[in-house]
Structure formats: C-alpha cells, structure tokens
C-alpha cells in the first residue's frame, strides 16, 4: 500500500537551515500567531454575545465590554495576520510537499480565505468605527464577522489535516481537479476544529479578564464585571474542552492516539502537563472571580494557561510528525545549506524591530500619561 503513495519530491534546493532550527522557528512563531488568533476567533464571538446581551437586557456593562472589545479586535486581526506569516513561511520550507498538494486539492475554499478575511476584517473596522451610528444593525455586522472568522478556521483545519494524509490525495485528485474538495470524510477534522474553537473561547475569555484588570483602576465595578465575565468564558470553555479534547484524542488513528497514552514518554508527559495546567488555570480563575484582589490569581492562571498552550503546540507537532513518519518521508534527512550572512541579518533585524516596537510603546505610554488631564 505504502509504495503506491504519491507524494511530490522534495525541492531540489537544499533546506536553508538545519531541520531543528526551522522546526523551532515554526513552533515559536506559531505560538506567537496562535495567541492573537485565539483572541480574535473567540473574541469576535464573545463580543457578539455581549453586545446581544447588553441590548437585550439594556445592561451597560455588556455594552461597554462589546464596545471595548470591538475597538481591540481590528488591531488583534493585524497581529494575527502579521504573526501568521512567519509560520506560513516555515511550514512551506519544511512541509511544502504536503502543504502545497493538499492546498491544491482544496484550492477554491483555500483561496477564498483571502476574500472572507477581507470582508470579516472590514466588518470589524465598520463595527469599531460606526459603533454609535449602527445601533441595531451593529449586531448583524459583528455576527457576520465572527462567523466568517470561524469559517476561516474551519477551512484551515481541513487543509492542515488533509496535508497529513497523502493516501487520500490521488483519488481525490482523480475525482475532481477543480480544487473544490474539503476534508470532511476525515473523522478527526470536526473534533480537531472544535478543539481549537473551544480553546479560543477560553483564551479570549482571558483577554476579557486582562481588560477587566486594566479597567479596575478607573472603574472598579465594570472592571470586576469584566474579570468575572471573562473568567466565566474561560472556565466553561475549558471544562467543555475535557469532553471535546477526549473526542479529538479518540478520533486520531490508534497508533497516534496511543503515543499520548503511554507509547511515547514525551507525548504522554505533555498531555498530562497540559491537562494539569488547564485544571490549575480553572482553579486560579475561579479564585480571581471571588478574590478581593483578583490580579494575582488571574495572572498566575494565565501563566499556567501559557504552559498548556505551549504543551498543546508541541503535541500538535508530535501528531503531525507521527502522521508524516508513516509516509516514509523524512524531512530531517534532507541536505542543508545555510546562507549564514542573511540568516544573521534576519535575527539581527528581528531584535531591532522588536526593540523599536517596544521603544514606540514606551514612548506612547509616556506620551499618553503626559497628555492625560490631571
């Protein structure tokens, strides 16, 4: 069966850096992308829900929250896209043979991501800039944007699972070359997507908590409301995640699933670590909702969720590697040729760019403080 697999040959040009380095950069930049992506994916939904509740119950807290989130979301989209480009680059270097092929098979949904993103993104700016004027129509705008972002995440999940299963490609391609495929016949696609989606509700809930903590200084009751409301989203979503996560785990091919249930020490440890810190996060966020000073437990709760996110990202990579190992392709064995000078420039200017962003943010804060009325 395996010798019948059709997989494109690797690029004749060597890998531009050692495998491990590209892998580290892929995972690191994916982490940087995933955090704002979660804020956006879950945040759009939370904004839509709180705007709805605010209008329905005529509750100023919900409305203020929706307004503040609405102002943040366009900036979060910019961060998501910008930080998403790097992992998109590194995945093409490492796994282009797989990624391009699955993308071609689902070319139409894949390219439509661009159009959907433009519509959803302008929708968010429309929502943010026309908050007052739009009134009732506002809800439709934010719902459309939030649902479109979910649609994008769904298309992504389809493709990133399809790239792992070359045994399906040839038949799909011979059935239709118009690039209209999705990957719905794969039993892992739906649970995997839900796993990501539910996680984004939890992580975006934490964004609401952060917002609440910041606002507590100027408006204690609203700040406390936001902390509680955000923690609620986090806790409910994370509890739900235990069901969705199990569903995803058992939907994986048996050998891949077993890696996390004892067959592989690292994978199993990561799963335990991820679950442990998620539970810890729930406890700490529960504390934050009742504590007089919610700041400390909330921050520790977020720190533990960062540990969970990191372990989940590594687990995700273990799943990918396990799938791809079965194809007989071993990217780690490809020849390497690292052009040192330009690589050094990349690292150097990365430091400079991040430094400049920090300088601008510091000057912004200082400036904002100066211009604030006494």
């Amino acid at each position, binding site marked *: 069966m395996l010798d019948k697999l059709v997989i494109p040959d690797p*690029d*004749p040009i060597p890998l531009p850096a050692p495998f491990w380095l590209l892998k580290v950069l892929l995972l690191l930049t994916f982490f940087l992308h995933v955090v704002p992506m979660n804020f956006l994916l879950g945040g759009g939904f939370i904004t839509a829900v709180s705007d709805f509740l605010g209008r329905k119950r005529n509750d100023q807290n919900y409305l203020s929250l929706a307004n503040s989130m609405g102002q943040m979301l366009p900036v979060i989209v910019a961060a998501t896209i910008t930080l998403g480009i790097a992992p998109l*680059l590194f995945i093409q270097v490492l796994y282009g043979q797989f990624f*391009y092929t699955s993308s071609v098979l689902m070319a139409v949904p894949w390219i439509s991501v661009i159009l959907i993103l433009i519509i959803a993104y302008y929708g968010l700016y429309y929502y943010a800039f026309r908050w007052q004027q739009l009134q009732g129509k506002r809800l439709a705008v934010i719902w459309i944007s939030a649902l479109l972002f979910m649609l994008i995440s769904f298309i992504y999940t389809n493709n990133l699972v399809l790239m792992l299963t070359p045994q399906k490609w040839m038949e799909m391609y011979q059935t239709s070359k*118009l690039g209209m495929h999705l990957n719905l016949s794969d039993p892992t696609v739906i649970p995997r997507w839900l796993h990501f989606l539910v996680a984004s509700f939890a992580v975006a809930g934490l964004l609401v908590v952060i917002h609440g903590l910041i606002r507590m200084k100027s408006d204690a009751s609203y700040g406390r409301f936001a902390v509680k409301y955000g923690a609620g989203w986090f806790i409910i979503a994370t509890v739900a995640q235990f069901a969705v996560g199990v569903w995803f785990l058992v939907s994986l091919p048996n050998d891949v699933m077993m890696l996390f249930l004892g067959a592989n020490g690292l994978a199993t440890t990561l799963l335990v670590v991820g679950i442990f810190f998620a539970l810890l996060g729930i406890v700490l966020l529960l504390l934050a909702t009742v504590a007089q000073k919610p700041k400390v437990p909330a921050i520790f709760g977020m720190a533990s969720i960062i540990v969970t996110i990191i372990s989940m990202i590594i687990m995700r990579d273990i799943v990918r590697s396990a799938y791809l190992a079965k194809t007989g392709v071993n990217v780690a064995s490809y020849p390497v040729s690292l*052009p040192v000078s*330009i690589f050094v420039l990349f690292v150097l200017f990365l430091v400079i*760019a991040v430094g400049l962003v920090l300088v601008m943010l510091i000057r912004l804060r200082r400036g904002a403080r100066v211009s604030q009325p006494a």
Partner: protein
Amino acid sequence: MNYPIWDVPFFGGGLVIAAIAILHVFVSQFAVGGGLFLPIVERKAYSENDSELLAYVKRHSKFFLLITIVWGAVTGVGIWFSIGLVNPAATSTLIHSFVWGWALEWDFFVLEIASILIYYYTWDKVDRKTHMFFGWVYFAAAWISLAIITGILSFMLTPGKWLETHKFWDGFLNPTYLPSVLVRTGVSFALAGLYAYVTLSVLPSSDFKERAVKYVSKWFLPASFLIAGAGIWYVAMIPAFPRTLTMGGAPMLTTWASLSVILSILIFVFVYFGPYKHSRSFTLPWAILLLLLGLGATTVTEFTREGARKPYVIYGYMYSNSILESQKYDLYTKGVLSTAKWVKDKQVNPAEMKAVGREIFRLECQSCHTINGYNGIKSVVAGWDSTYTDAILRNLDVLKGYMPPFMGTDAERAALVTYLTSLNPLRRTLALEFRTENALEAGRTVFDRFCFRCHTVDGYNAMRTKVAGYTYSQLDSLLQHLPELRGDMPPFPGNENERHALATWLASLNQAK
C-alpha cells in the same frame, strides 16, 4: 510535474494570481509612498501652523490605514496563497532560495504594521515629535520591505549568477535589482499623490483645497524623474530576448509595454491639466479617473514584466509550466507521463489518445492557456489539421520564442495533436468568414491564420522577399509542395479555394511595392 494541477476553467490560474497581485501592488506601493507623505505633510502642517492641513492629514491617515492594513496586508498574503496553488514548484524554489530574505522582510513587516497602528491611534495622544517619529519608523520599515521583496521579484526575470551558484546574494543582488527598486519607489510617490487626491477631492472648494491640491501635484515631479530614468535603466539591464519581446517580438506584450508608457504619460498630463491647473474645482470623479489610470498603468506594467519572463517562470531555470530546464532532455526520452506524478496512466494508451492528450495539455500548456477562455487554445487551433498542428508543436520554441518547447516523446506529441484537433469540429474551410468574392482579403485572412505563426509581411522572416519574382500560378503550385520546399514547413492545411486566395494575395505583394 511534481504537484497536482488546479484546473481553473475559463480564467486560468495565471489570471487568479494576476488579479490578486495587481490589486496588492497598487495598494502596497501606495503604502510606501503614502507612508512618506504622512509625516512630511504632518511636519509641514506644524511648521506652517496650518490647522486645516493638520486636520486633513489626520483624516487621510484613517483612509490610509483602512486601505493599507486591511486590503494591502491581506492581498499580500493572498499572493502567497495563489502562487502556492497555481505554481507550487516555483513557489517552493522562491521559498527555499530566499527563506531568510522573506524572514528578514517579515521583521520589517511586523515593524510596519505595529508603527502604522501606533501612528494612527496616537494622534493628539503624544507630543508632535514623538508622533512624527512613529510615522518615520513606518515609512522606513515600509520602504525597506519593498526593497527586500523587489530583490526576489526581479530575480525571477534576471537570476544572474544564481543560476550557477544558487547563492542567496547572487540571486538577490541581480542585474535588474537596483533599477527595479528605484522604479517602484518612484511609482510609490506617484501613488501617494493619486490617493491623496481622492481624500482632497471630496472637500468643498476652498483656499485650503487649492493650496493642498497644488502641493500634492508636486509629488509627481520626483516620481516622474525616478520612473522614467530608472525605467530606461531597467530596460537596458534586462536580457536582449525579453526586451525584443516587448518591442515588437510578441504582439500582445508589445501592446502591454506601449500601454504602460502611454498610460504613465497620460497620468502626468491629466495631473497637470486636472488638479494642478484646476485645484479649487477638483472633484471626486477626476480623482477616481486618475486612480483608474494608475491602476491601468500598474496592470499593464506588471503584465509586461511577467510576460517578458516567458517562456520561463524563473529565467533559465524553470519554465512557466514548472518544468525545470535541467529536466528537459529527460522528458524527450522518458516522456512527460512517466515523469509526472499525478497522472493515471504512465504511458500513452493508444485507445485513449484524446484523454491522454488532455492530460498532456494540463501538464505542459495549461499554466498559460485555458481551453475556452483567457488565452484559450480552442480558437488558436481552429482550422488546424493534424499535420499542421504537429509541425507547430515540433517547433514551438522556434516559432514562438516565448513558448517552451514541447517536451515529450513522439507518442505523447501525437496524443496532444489528437486532443488539440478534437477541440474544433473538423472542416476543410476556415472558421473565419471566408468571402471568395474578394480574393485579396480572403488571402490575407488565410495568411493570418496559417502563415503568420512564422512569417511576417515585411519584418521577421519576411514574406515579401520570399515571394519576390513569383507569379500567381507558380505560388499556387509551390503551396502544394511546401514540405519539399523546406523541411520544417508543414503542408498547406487549407482547401483549394483558400490556397487560390492565398496565392492571389502573395502574388499581389510583388506589385504593391
């Protein structure tokens, strides 16, 4: 060969890339020039204590943000998506050769996005100097990312020493790199002006409007010098062959290239007689007209640049159909079907010649040709019989310098011929309106159909000199023996009437001069 091929009916994959890329370039180059425009105008407003100008540049920065950060950034990602779908092999080459160039560009992209957001959101929140500092950081980052991307873009037409060394800097600092950066910089200044007209044109007529529109018009002066000067430099640096293509060698490309020059000049003329001369009464339709002219100029220029690269996608390395130059001779002997990964039958099945031919069309031709739509092959081969089609296919790269040779075995070529001749109902007369009552006109039509692939009237391989001294009856008889006359000429594919008409027209060439 290596990747499955996405069928895009009617439009073709190339147009998908073109549509996204052009709309991206038109905004992203504005994102550079407009990035210079913002802090310069802001400084001008401060130093002249011009509150109207300051209010304008604030409003303009919102327009700028909404256009560049959404449309510009997302369509930029869109280019990655589309080239990965339509030409994964070439995309993979660009990624593998230049990954750290892309990564470096990403450093500046991060800085660019962060600084424009900070710039926009800190109007009146920080002191003037700090605010302008944000603007300058933005412009520097935006221009540097243009300068990095241009290295990789210009590499595709003039890879220079990279072809031998495969070294990053040999590809990046290629012969057309510097002129390309300068032209694009000039274009970005002009676009800064074109977009500023849009936001100015909606203002009511006033002293301020007059003053501001006049000022913006001045942005076109340095732009015109850069575009014209660096443009000439650029054309001088591209290899002779693509240059001849744009200057008569390929009719379509020549049209694009001339339109590029004409539209660019028109923009400057329209700027002078429109906003510059009538600053006060300058209105939105004018601004939109100018913007459309700019979009037109961008479109034809990018089409020319892309087209001039034919038959390659990376010059001298990879053909437009993703076949590597180094693979070519293997394909002649082993065949394209046995090399291609995504075909059902690895050999020509004589019972399925048409289907096999369709597959070969997909592999070798579809990257540029659709069947019925854009650059559609059906209308190109109308009226061709098998012998004629085969003769063309055997000499593709010679007849059409901007096409790759047909790379495959004789059996594979025969399958492609079967497919191509099956596209139109077989008939012995031309599909064109053939009117026997005017033999001269009909003869010219026949010439355009069958001979024009290789012969011009007075230019390349000139027909007039070939037929000098021949009479009608001699020509009519020669037309029946073309292969004997010249080994590589196909037999005349038309019917008797068409032959008579052609002979009549050819004979008339002797008298016309």
